């Protein structure tokens, strides 16, 4: 055995591969089946009657199930947004792009999606936008069936109309 000092091991690679299944849940499944048919489905809280889009099956505020379907359009208002200028792993959207919080007409909660077909500098809080869907034959049970949102050209919604959704 040698007494010479050994170099300390500072880094080893131990890759971990574990495969998990994902259960969207009953509420989200109804929503996603709607998406596969090209429509956005809201679910209404059985207690407070608020309408959730991209529902997870409960109204988080009441801890109650969201069961009844409510009509929600694929148009809405940008309540806030970020211009993303930094690349991220697993994202293949051309930089810069706008990630926005959108309040759909008929819904009471917001969700995030990408805004395109407009220069990033021109995106505003209050801007009216609509969904751009993939072609009918490519529709599937995923939010990726909506490619992005684009401006509708309508006048901006007043701040007061969405200030409760920041």
């Amino acid at each position: 055995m040698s007494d010479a000092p050994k170099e300390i091991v500072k880094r080893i690679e131990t890759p971990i591969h574990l495969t998990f299944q994902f259960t969207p849940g009953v509420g989200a499944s109804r929503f996603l089946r709607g998406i596969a048919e090209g429509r956005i489905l809201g679910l209404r809280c059985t207690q407070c009657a608020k309408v959730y889009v991209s529902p997870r099956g409960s109204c988080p505020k009441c801890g109650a199930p969201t069961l009844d379907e409510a009509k929600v359009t694929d148009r809405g208002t940008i309540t806030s947004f970020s211009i993303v200028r930094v690349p991220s792993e697993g994202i293949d959207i051309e930089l810069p792009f706008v990630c926005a919080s959108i309040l759909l007409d008929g819904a009471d909660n917001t969700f995030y999606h990408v805004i395109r077909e407009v220069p990033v500098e021109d995106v505003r809080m209050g801007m009216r936008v609509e969904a751009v869907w993939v072609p009918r034959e490519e529709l599937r049970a995923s939010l990726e069936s909506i490619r992005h949102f684009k401006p509708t050209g309508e006048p901006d919604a007043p701040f007061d109309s969405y200030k409760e959704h920041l």
Partner: protein
Amino acid sequence: MRDVAIVSFAQSPSIRREPARNDVEMLMPVIAEALERSKVKRDRVGFWCSGSTDFLTGQPFSFVGALDAVGAWPPISESHVEMDGAWALYEAWIRMQHENLDAAVVYAFGRSSLGPVPDVMCMQLDPYVLTPLWPDAVSLAALQARAYLEASGKTERDLAEVAIRNRRNAKANPNAQVKG
């Protein structure tokens, strides 16, 4: 020490695989039932605590989503242990010893069907020298059992009888998954 009583309890049946519901949808009726049975009003609950582990579901922050089952509004005093729910009960009990707190709700959830549990449990080991060997949880339990048999002088039959007793007891438990 202040006496603390458990006044109600609810659970979903243990099944091999929940095919449709997500964590929130599984928890909501269980929490509602426990509250209902306790006759304690939601606004009297001074503390909530949960136990779960992200590695079972394969998603970070799984307890954050589970909060959607609680109805945490107005905001609640709440905590979470990344451990078995028994420790959530312990944390609630500690707080009841010194806080002006009359009622607490404790909940826990786990979904073993989503991932390869024997391999997942391997992630609990020393990450540098043990995990990379991927010893699965069943094999590690077998090593423990062997060590126990050698040290105690018990037999495999003794261990098998533990299993028999538990499977038999389970026949009287409508929530048990494996019975016989």
